[in-house]
């Protein structure tokens, strides 16, 4: 056994390329997995930790209607009901201006006296800013005193005891940093202020966002009995969970993308492993003849794979950690764009993640090496098989492998149709689809190459034909490279087509939805009523709509209520999907009924005629669903209610945004300026924009969200390029004799390099062509299954020829890049080689 291992070690030492490529394949695959895992995990952990820090020992939350909870109820709980483990919270978004881009933090208005029963905030005192008492005095008594994490302060250039501007509800407020959190950045997304400061800034005297409270199970019933109408008691952990669940689909998709990279990496490892076995045929034959058993050969190859897997795994983990840090930025940005405020200071390494990477490396290497190892073990003693014998074997197996691929395709279809809702099933189907294509591609390629050969002959003569024929003839080498490249390229085609279709749908939806000419709004709500009056009374304004968005958390989920006062001409902006708009709208205006967005309906299994229960100020109440409407809003989609209906059930009068319909749309720019000027007059910084401006902004956020997707599939393409590199290099090494012959027959170096380049280019083209059906199939599954199941969106699929052509070009380019060095190397083949005897 040790001699066998020594022999294999010696072989690998003399073939560093093989060794390097096998390790590189594992490294690349593991790195991407680790990177995505770390980025996701760190984002999740940061969110949970920061929420843990701000939830503390609270088990429940008392929440109210859109305008919150009456603070008198809080005082009652303390002074009359004897509850002691509770704290009031006033929460909102706060924008800190910064030259590098404004930063939105969560303003947390807290009562530090009450906090000590639930949470343990710790502060760093200023260096010389005086006693603890001073700090505390100022935090409590000096309006505008705030605390942020040290990292946030550094990033935003905030200094202790200096004042800076915070924009809350569109109003500029003066804040002063009195201390920083003494934590490891957990509270990076928070701006802590005294509850009085928060109420002053929000201009919401008397109202709390919620009451955090610690209750045990046997206190619940009695406590619920005390709740005023319109207030509800929520489980704190449940709320954290439902907030986090919003990102589930997002993170699952990222993980799926990372698995794709490992899959491509897997092909790479298989490639290298089978090649090392192939090259060692004589060695293995000799060893077998000397009495080494099949099992020993098997163990030697598998053991070799395990060692390489472990090395690649370790390197992959290291590379993955580095890559994870880069990815984390994009993940955090997307979560901030789409879901909630999140500040993540750095990646968190967990033993589990590292173990996962290592295990993935070893397991992938073992899986990939299993087939070659079995094959090697099966070699008869001493026989040195002619290469064409193996090719013959591969060629005969191709149709059967392809049949297995077809069977997998059927299985993929079954998986898709087995469940209508399971996202996981959708992703499994995608992987089955990829595998089925992977198995079919060599067969397709063999046929395509057959078709290509005469064409090549016509274009480039026998030498070109020689290059192309070489592909089909040496499928045992090239097939896997083609598959890896095809899978990577098909992912780019699939994702590009999906994103492009999605973008198109969003764009036309935006065009329809943004029916007013000018919009003004405050992200956190609360436009000054006087400002509303002034704006809507502008001469150019013919009509206006208002909207208010509010989020209700409930036992197991959340509901975003969008309250709209429609302008007379504005109804067309909402596309009713399953009913006659002419019938729906009058009822919606009049009756206690609502519309639900398509994703919301999908997620909650709602249909026209069902009802949505909403917590009104006078208790829960069922609102019948009149119809569903189209929406691509990530988490804004929910329940649409007429303002007049809302006003009957809630006291909240807040308006978040206003749409202005002008007598002349061409005056939009001028009106935007006028609205901004009015905002300044009323001392409220409202966001004002023409509908085109919003459309552009929305699309730019849309695009930003998919940056990470782009990065991931480029990584997959990168791994595939490495695969091509390895395969071509191996092929050139193997073709050494043939190349030497061609050289001796009089082919110059550049002619030979060109010949090899033609071969790789053709491999790329074949991979690109093979990738088209898979790419389009993937796009279809992504659009019709994954997006639908993850987000509930209906997207019109639109295959732009440019993406398909681009995919093929990408494949050719990738192959040429990967094949560049092998081609150059081939040119240097010594002609004398061919003269030597075997």
């Amino acid at each position, binding site marked *: 056994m040790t001699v066998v291992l020594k022999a294999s070690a010696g072989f690998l030492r003399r073939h560093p390329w093989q060794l390097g490529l096998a390790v590189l394949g594992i490294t690349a695959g593991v790195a991407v997995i680790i990177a995505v895992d770390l980025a996701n995990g760190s984002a999740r952990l940061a969110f949970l930790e920061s929420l843990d820090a701000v939830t503390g020992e609270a088990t429940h939350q008392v929440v109210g209607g859109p305008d919150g909870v009456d*603070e*008198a109820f*809080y*005082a009652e709980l*303390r*002074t*009359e*009901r*004897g509850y*002691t483990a509770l704290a009031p919270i006033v929460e909102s978004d706060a924008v800190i201006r910064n030259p590098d881009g404004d930063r939105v933090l969560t303003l947390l208005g807290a*009562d*530090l*006296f*009450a*906090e*000590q029963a639930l949470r*343990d*905030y*710790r*502060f*760093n*005192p200023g*260096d010389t800013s005086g*006693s*603890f*008492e001073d*700090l*505390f*005095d100022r935090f*409590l*008594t*000096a*309006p505008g005193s705030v605390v942020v994490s040290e990292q946030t302060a550094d990033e935003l250039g905030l200094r202790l005891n200096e004042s800076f501007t915070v924009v809350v509800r569109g109003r500029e407020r003066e804040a002063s940093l009195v201390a920083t959190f*003494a934590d490891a950045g957990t509270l990076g997304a928070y701006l802590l202020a*005294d*509850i*009085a*400061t928060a*109420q*002053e800034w929000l*201009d919401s*005297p*008397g109202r709390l966002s919620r009451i955090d409270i610690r209750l045990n199970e046997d206190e619940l019933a009695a406590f619920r009995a005390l709740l005023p109408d319109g207030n509800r008691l929520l489980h704190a952990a449940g709320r954290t969970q439902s907030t986090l669940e919003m990102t589930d689909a997002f993170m699952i998709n990222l993980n799926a993308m990372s698995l794709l990279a490992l899959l491509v990496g897997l092909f790479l490892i298989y490639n290298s492993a089978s090649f090392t076995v192939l090259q060692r045929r004589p060695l293995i034959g000799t060893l077998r003849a000397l009495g080494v058993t099949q099992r020993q050969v098997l163990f030697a190859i598998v053991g070799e794979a395990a060692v390489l897997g472990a090395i690649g795994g370790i390197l992959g983990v290291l590379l993955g950690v580095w890559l994870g840090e880069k990815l984390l930025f994009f993940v955090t940005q997307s979560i901030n764009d789409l879901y909630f405020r999140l500040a993540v200071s750095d990646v968190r390494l967990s033993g589990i993640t590292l173990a996962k990477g290592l295990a993935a490396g070893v397991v992938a290497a073992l899986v990939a090496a299993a087939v070659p190892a079995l094959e090697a073990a099966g070699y008869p003693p001493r026989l040195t098989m002619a290469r064409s014998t193996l090719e013959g074997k591969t060629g005969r197996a191709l149709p059967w492998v392809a049949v297995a691929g077809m069977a997998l395709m059927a299985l993929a279809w079954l998986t898709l149709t087995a469940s209508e809702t399971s996202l996981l099933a959708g992703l499994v189907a995608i992987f089955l689809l990829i595998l089925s294509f992977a198995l079919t591609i060599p067969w397709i390629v063999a046929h395509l190459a057959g078709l290509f050969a005469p064409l090549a002959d016509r274009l480039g003569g026998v030498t070109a034909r020689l290059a192309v024929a070489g592909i089909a003839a040496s499928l045992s080498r090239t097939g896997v490279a083609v598959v890896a490249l095809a899978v990577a390229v098909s992912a780019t085609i699939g994702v590009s087509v999906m994103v492009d279709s999605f973008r198109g749908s969003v764009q036309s939806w935006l065009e329809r939805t943004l029916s007013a000419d000018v919009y003004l709004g405050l992200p956190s709500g609360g436009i000054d009523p006087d400002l509303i009056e002034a704006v809507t009374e502008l001469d150019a304004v013919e009509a206006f709509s208002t909207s208010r968005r509010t989020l209700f958390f409930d036992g197991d989920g959340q509901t975003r209520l969008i309250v709209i006062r429609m302008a007379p001409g504005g109804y067309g902006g909402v596309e009713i999907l399953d009913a006659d708009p002419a019938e729906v709208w009058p009822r919606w205006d009049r009756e206690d009924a609502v519309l639900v967005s398509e994703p919301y309906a999908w997620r909650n299994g709602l249909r026209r005629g069902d009802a949505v229960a909403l917590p009104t100020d006078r208790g829960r109440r069922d609102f019948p669903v009149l119809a569903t409407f189209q929406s691509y809003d990530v988490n804004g989609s929910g329940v649409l209610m007429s303002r007049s209906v809302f006003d009957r059930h809630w006291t909240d009068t807040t308006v978040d945004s206003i749409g202005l319909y002008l007598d002349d749309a061409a005056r939009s720019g001028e009106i935007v300026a006028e609205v901004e000027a009015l905002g300044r007059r009323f001392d409220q910084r409202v966001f004002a924009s023409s509908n085109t401006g919003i459309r552009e902004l929305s699309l730019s956020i849309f695009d930003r969200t998919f940056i990470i997707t782009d990065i991931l599939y480029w990584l997959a393409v990168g791994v595939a390029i490495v695969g091509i590199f390895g395969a071509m290099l191996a092929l050139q090494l193997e073709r050494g004799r043939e190349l030497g012959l061609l050289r001796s027959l009089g082919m110059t170096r550049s002619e030979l390099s060109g010949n090899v380049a033609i071969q790789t280019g053709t491999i790329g083209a074949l991979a690109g062509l093979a990738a088209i059906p898979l790419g389009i199939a993937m796009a279809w599954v992504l659009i019709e299954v994954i997006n639908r199941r993850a987000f509930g969106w209906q997207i019109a699929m639109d295959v732009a020829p440019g993406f398909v052509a681009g995919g093929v070009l990408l494949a050719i380019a990738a192959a040429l890049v990967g094949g560049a060095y092998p081609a150059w190397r081939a040119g240097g083949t010594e002609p004398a080689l061919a003269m030597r005897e075997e």
Partner: protein
Amino acid sequence: MKRAIPVIALLCSLSAHAQQRSELAELLDAGDESFPRAVEPRAFSFPADHGPHPEFRNEWWYITGNLDSTTGRRFGYELTIFRFALAPRRPASSSAWRSNQVYIAHLAVTDPEEDRFLTDEKFSRGAAGLAGATAKPFAVWIDDWRIADRMADRSAASAGAEDGAGEAWSLTAASGDFSLTLELDALKPPVLNGQAGLSQKSDEPGNASYYYSLTRIATRGEIRIDDEVFDVAGFSWLDREWSSSALDKEQIGWDWFALQFDDGTELMYYSIRRSDGSEDRNSAGTRTAADGTASKLGSDAVQLTVLDTWDSPAGGTYPSRWRLAVPAEELVLEIEPVMANQELFTTVRYWEGAVDVTGTKGGERVSGRGYVELTGYAPPDSDE
């Protein structure tokens, strides 16, 4: 490495009973110039002065009492509500939470039979109805710990005694495992300590407080400990004091005695200790006759001798038995805690406990009960 400060430590620094010299000095000495100081005697008016004096930096309502249950069990209790102004004025605000006032309360029950000393503490801002004090009708509260005019609490139209005598209050305070529900009826009018209520604490003018006491308050009600409820009755004592600045840097703590004798008289004496170990000459007391007439006791009129000490398990040595003599009255008393360990581990450590008093006056036996407060004995930093 910067030191992280938990919020609790911030609160700690606010307590008037801080025993660390620096904290004490910071809080009670050389107060902010913009707070008014107790410089000259003022006219007291009741019940108005039972209410808060928010312009002063600190103020307290300090009730202690010795009670017996109908089953013959002995209890002591303390409920103190402190008020601190963090700034001279409340900033203008639309928010009811904006305040310059902070309230802290300490609650303790001494149960010598079970050798138990139960304590609790509360903090709150004096705002949003969570904590505060009002004069008319009288009330001072923090959360559901409350001392208030019983009549006013029952009906707004109170015929509350205009002369200040006969205050009829209620006291409620509940902690997790014990609670107090008491009715308090003052048997004597307020006694003004010091110079007509101006109590000089150090040599510097302005280092003084306004200080009065209700020295004998008939008390009855319930004490609950765990699930046991005791019907109790006895006498309580109220100390009321407000100031902006009192001690100077050399004054490290005090021993305070409030004694109620069986003959219907009372004696209050506080001894301020200086860092060199001597008794400060501003130490003083008040002797109250059965009919409520009061007379001042200067430090030279009282001789205080420590007879025994008690080592706190948490460090520090407290005096635990005294001889107190008032030669002019031929009064010689021995004062002994009903239980050695009545140390409060609130954010600031101090000893406050029920005591028994025995002795002679002009050769005749006298006895009584009382409360003693000992501050400045815990070694620095031992409370963390």
